[in-house]
């Protein structure tokens, strides 16, 4: 069977989290033919992740407010008749915005007039000795285990890193009946207090934070501010976690002896990094903004990028939090509808101004949280030389430093010389920290840039891409006359 031409569609939305789903609903309301794609089995993204169907809602578990919001969104999507392809991964996007998917039935291709990337974030973990041990997971991973699998990361867990997920995870573990050995926070209490003005608009979240703290205190969990993990050793069946005091930049303070905690699991995360695989693949212009998560596609307030027809929305466009992501998705949908000729200039301006107002307050809060989660230079500087930085290819900090000393000037040279970022994760896990390490030699994040986006975005086999294509399908041009 020869290759079928890609299916035409007005708008293809990648990612069915709060931003993508709300964008799809809004765009459909303007009469656009929309396709919504997500690699997860249902909509909701990471924040509104559902329990698996048939899972124990019946077992008397009180659904969280996030589950309720997620269920409402999923019901709305189902009622809308929007075409949704769940369990589908985008493995390639061409320069014409042609989008190649792989799903349970194999590969399909779509040709949208506009493409909205709402792929959210991945978690950043600043590496330490032992972070690759099975049983050490991300903070976001622990959230997913607790929220969508009703499962603890271990019997006794050390929770470490920075940002609001710390308390959310520690408190979630206690609530689910687990033990928290300690909470290690890179920030200080006063760092948190500085976010208070932006919290004023969200008393509900402030109250939630207070409740989390109270639960930890009641359980007698040691909460160590300005501490990080120096290393984790596997001892017997468990872990010995060395907690080290850090300074304001996150650098380990060596003259103080570490505190040691015994645990059988570690949940650690140092903030979120916007997912820019697709915008980098399409060579959109990007800029580095540490307080919004790092590299982000350069876009206007409605997510229009430097590439015609390519839009970004939600945390993947720069971290502003889930509460702001919905309005941001709708802003992008309004832009698409206008740019595709479905909305007059006046209507566009009216809708945009209304949505910007909706977006502002939650975004202010989300950005304050993003500030707490921003990469701390000292934490990167404190990575021990023999620590694996690129997990896929086992590339250590010492090898990255050596490449820099040998003259690697940007991320692509680093990749070519060391294989850092060349593995199946495409540099999503290590890229941000490797960039910071190289920038320390070269001068700035802008100078070293980021890994050039490459297909496949997700591992895919040649057999899957080729499908039923056979030898007989190879077009052989007629021989030229002699």
């Amino acid at each position, binding site marked *: 069977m020869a290759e079928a031409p890609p299916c035409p569609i007005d708008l293809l939305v990648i990612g069915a989290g709060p931003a993508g789903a709300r964008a799809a609903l809004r765009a459909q309301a303007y009469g656009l033919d929309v396709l919504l794609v997500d690699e997860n*089995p249902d909509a909701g993204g990471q924040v509104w992740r559902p329990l698996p169907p*048939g*899972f124990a809602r019946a077992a008397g578990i009180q659904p969280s407010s996030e589950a309720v919001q997620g269920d409402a969104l999923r019901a709305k999507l189902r009622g809308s008749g929007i075409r949704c392809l769940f369990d589908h991964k985008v493995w390639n996007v061409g320069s014409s915005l042609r989008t190649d998917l792989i799903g349970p039935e194999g590969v399909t291709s779509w040709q949208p007039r506009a493409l909205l990337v709402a792929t959210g974030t*991945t978690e950043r973990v600043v590496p330490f000795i032992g972070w690759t041990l099975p049983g050490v997971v*991300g903070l976001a991973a622990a959230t997913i285990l607790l929220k969508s699998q009703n499962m603890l990361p271990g019997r006794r867990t050390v929770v470490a890193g920075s940002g609001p997920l710390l308390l959310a995870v520690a408190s979630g573990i206690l609530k689910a009946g687990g033990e928290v050995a300690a909470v290690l926070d890179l920030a200080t209490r006063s760092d948190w207090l500085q976010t208070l003005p932006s919290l004023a608009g969200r008393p509900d979240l402030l109250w939630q934070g207070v409740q989390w703290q109270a639960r930890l205190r009641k359980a007698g969990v040691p909460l160590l501010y300005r501490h990080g993990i120096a290393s984790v050793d596997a001892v017997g069946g468990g872990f010995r976690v060395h907690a080290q005091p850090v300074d304001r930049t996150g650098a380990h303070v060596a003259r103080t002896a570490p505190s040691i905690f015994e645990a059988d699991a570690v949940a650690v995360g140092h903030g979120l990094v916007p997912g820019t695989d697709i915008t980098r693949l399409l060579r959109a212009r990007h800029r580095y903004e540490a307080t919004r998560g790092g590299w982000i596609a350069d876009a206007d307030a409605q997510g229009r990028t430097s590439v015609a027809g390519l839009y970004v929305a939600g945390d993947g466009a720069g971290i502003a939090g889930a509460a702001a992501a919905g309005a941001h998705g709708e802003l992008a949908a309004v832009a698409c509808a206008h740019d595709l000729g479905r909305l007059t200039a006046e209507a566009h301006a009216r809708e945009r101004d209304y949505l910007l107002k909706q977006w502002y307050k939650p975004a202010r809060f989300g950005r304050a949280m993003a500030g707490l989660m921003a990469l701390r230079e000292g934490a990167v500087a404190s990575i021990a030389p023999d620590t694996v930085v690129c997990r896929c*290819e*086992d590339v250590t900090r010492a090898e990255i430093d050596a490449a820099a000393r040998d003259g690697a000037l940007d991320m692509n040279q680093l990749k070519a010389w060391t294989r850092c970022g060349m*593995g199946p*994760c495409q540099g999503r896990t290590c890229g941000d920290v490797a960039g910071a390490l190289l920038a320390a030699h070269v001068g700035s994040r802008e100078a070293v840039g980021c890994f050039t986006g490459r297909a496949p975005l997700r591992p895919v086999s040649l*057999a899957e891409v080729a499908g039923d294509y056979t030898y007989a399908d190879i077009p052989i041009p007629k021989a030229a006359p002699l």
Partner: protein
Amino acid sequence: MVDGCTVNAFEGESVAAALFAMGRRELRRSPRNGAPRGMFCLMGSCQECLVWVGRRKQPACQVPAAEGLQIESLDFREQRLG
């Protein structure tokens, strides 16, 4: 079935979570150092928990457990096929 052994799981939980719950934390060895690796990001990004699901290599955290599902770890398949 995982590597030829029967694994009990709740229908719909991820294969990664089911294996973790039964105490199997190590899912593969890293290609260069041969160091043990297990699930890490749980959202399909880091690819640390890659396993064979039939002809496809997929992150175990993205594959819902189901009756009769056949899973092989990368190392197990490599050994089986020589």
